[in-house]
């Protein structure tokens, strides 16, 4: 198979994947730094390069609402947004998931106001983590492209919507080498659109989104939770098939030099790339360090996380969002909780970093590994929750 090698930004990569998916409907609203995705896709529509009908909605709330209508009518549906846009969609996120509509959002991780800021952190998708959407984080443009294609297939397998995200500017606007699959290979991979139901089937009318009270609501939610469990198998299956067909396999995480590591950093998104550089440097010096990159945060692969990490001496979790609970970030809470059942629990610390697009430097990551080394040696933690790269 002939892959095309091009230079593309994260936004361009996601827009390209959307073009190849060729959805029935895209309804979207622009917001920095995801605007380009919408713009590029609009020109695909204007130039007749897709069959998609584009709805230039008057807000993100309406964009996702239109997506819900479009998907309930049996269409394959996608959108794109970031930050405030995702926050404005918040109400409808839960409805899309509750109605089991396999919509895909190409999301760019940007800080939520306030104060207003257009740069990267994960506060937007983290605030949506309990909405019933599959969440896939991408380290670079290639992953953003690969993840978008896989997300469509995973979503339609389990009838849950999915968010694929990239870090604002760091990935969304950085030109990188990208391998693009042939259009027909992408179409063959995602297959015919699988829809949960079809409002346009007027001969078999159904009522959707009705009032669901104490006697049924819980059962419906229970099924949704079960679907999220099933999504685990779908993530693995689709990631494996992607590898078999196109060369790169995907799973819940990427374990980088973790085989014999004692100390690990856990990160999502572009920071994983920087951390790999630091791991290599420290390995040169003989430190047994590794990186555990989380690709899929929803569903949370708790068993697998436990198995991969329980033999570590110490782990630092990098959170690019704070839970505002005075007790650290969301990734910290969840990963630490996964390890609660293990017999010898590793020490787990938390580093909040990079809020509002503050850069994270290799030296800072190195300092985290050094902290971990000390913590592991002494067996005790002085600072459980740390703030990295902030003036205080």
């Amino acid at each position, binding site marked *: 198979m002939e892959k095309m090698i091009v230079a593309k930004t994260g936004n361009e990569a996601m827009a390209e994947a959307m073009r190849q998916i060729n959805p029935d409907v895209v*309804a979207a609203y622009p917001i920095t730094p995801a605007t380009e995705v919408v713009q590029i896709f609009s020109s695909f529509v204007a130039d007749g390069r897709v069959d998609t009908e584009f709805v230039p909605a008057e*807000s993100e709330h309406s964009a996702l*609402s239109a997506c819900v209508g479009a998907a309930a009518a049996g269409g394959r549906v996608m959108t794109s947004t970031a930050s405030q846009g995702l926050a404005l969609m918040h109400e409808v996120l839960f409805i899309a998931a509750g109605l089991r509509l396999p919509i895909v959002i190409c999301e760019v991780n940007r800080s939520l106001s306030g104060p207003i800021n257009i740069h990267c952190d994960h506060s937007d998708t983290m605030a949506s983590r309990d909405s019933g959407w599959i969440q896939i984080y991408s380290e670079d443009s290639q992953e953003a492209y690969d993840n978008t294609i896989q997300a469509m297939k995973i979503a339609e397998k389990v009838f849950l919507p999915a968010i694929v995200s990239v870090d604002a500017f760091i990935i969304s606007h950085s030109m990188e080498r990208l391998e693009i699959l042939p259009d027909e290979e992408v179409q063959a991979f995602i297959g015919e659109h699988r829809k949960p139901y079809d409002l*346009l089937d007027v001969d078999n009318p*159904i*009522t959707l989104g009705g009032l669901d009270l104490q006697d*049924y609501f819980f059962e419906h939610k229970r099924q949704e939770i079960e679907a999220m469990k099933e999504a685990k198998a779908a993530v693995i299956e689709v990631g494996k098939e992607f590898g078999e067909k196109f060369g790169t396999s995907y799973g819940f995480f990427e374990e980088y030099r973790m085989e014999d590591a004692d100390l690990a950093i856990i990160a999502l998104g572009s920071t994983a790339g920087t951390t790999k550089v630091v791991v290599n440097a420290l390995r040169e010096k003989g430190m047994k360090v590794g990186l555990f990159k989380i690709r899929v945060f929803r569903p949370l692969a708790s068993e697998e996380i436990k198995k991969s990490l329980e033999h570590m001496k110490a782990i630092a979790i990098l959170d690019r969002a704070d839970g505002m609970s005075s007790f650290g970030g969301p990734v910290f809470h969840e990963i630490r909780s996964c390890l609660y059942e293990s017999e010898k629990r590793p020490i787990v610390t938390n580093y909040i970093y990079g809020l509002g697009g503050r850069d994270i430097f290799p030296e800072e990551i190195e300092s985290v590994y050094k902290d971990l080394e000390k913590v592991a040696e002494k067996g005790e933690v002085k600072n459980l929750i740390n703030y990295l790269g902030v003036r205080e």
Partner: protein
Amino acid sequence: MPSLKQLSSEKDLFTYGHRACAGCAASIILRQVALVAGKNTIFVGATGCMEVVSTIFPYTAWKVPFLHNAFENSAATGSGIETTYRSLKKRGKITKKINVIAFGGDGGTYDIGFQSLSGAMERRHDMLYLCYNNEAYMNTGIQRSSATPFGAHTTTSPAGTVIPGKQQFPKDLTEAIAAHDIPYVAQAAPHNWADFTKKVEKALTIEGPTFINVLSPCPLGWVYPPHLSIKMSKLAAETCFWPLYEVENGIHKINFKPREKKPLIEWTKLQGRFRHLLSESNKHIVEEAQKEVDRKWNRLLKMAEAKI
């Protein structure tokens, strides 16, 4: 245009078993719309009385496809359905003509869903939006909306000892939507079923976005005996508080001109929500309300006369 006799022999598509209050006009309105629209129609309903009373799982009063998304987004949701329909039609996957009708109460339309409606109309989706206007948020216990009449008591504009009910005139949503320059906008009321169903039929025949605002008397919120709903509807038209008219391609046309315009009080005095206006100290409210009705009616007459 089917006759009432013909319509009544059609199979109901919004059917019995819904849990609306006795005398609820909104359920009559939906039943008539569904009859006219027929089975190749998809309905989207906003959160509010009509969604709540008609779709309690595992039951449904709908024999046509129905979708409820949320409170403020039924227009956007309908626009999504219409877009999939267009997309699949273009791809040759569907050939049937299918109507999309989105509806909401006055809260879901005048207030929280105003933006969503405006967007859908401006994008010119081929759909009908229908507002059943019972002039308050009934589902949540009769709170004021921007459609609530001047002086009316609601639970958030109570007739108190200092402030006698709602202090603002209702928003003229029909004209606001007409200002979107869509092909067809109309105001209707359920007592005049022939006028109303004709408007629905017309709206569905026209390509592009159409909007109908239907007054929907509500015994619970307006506080009158349930058997008077149709009378309430009729009086609203006869007092010219709720003119029956249409705006087709920008031209206003009045569909009902009372031979003798009744004073507004003939309508308000029958409703508990205006009870406080009967006291001498609130006479000025009645006068102000009447003046506003006159002003709006005269304006409408002039527009119709000038064919604008």
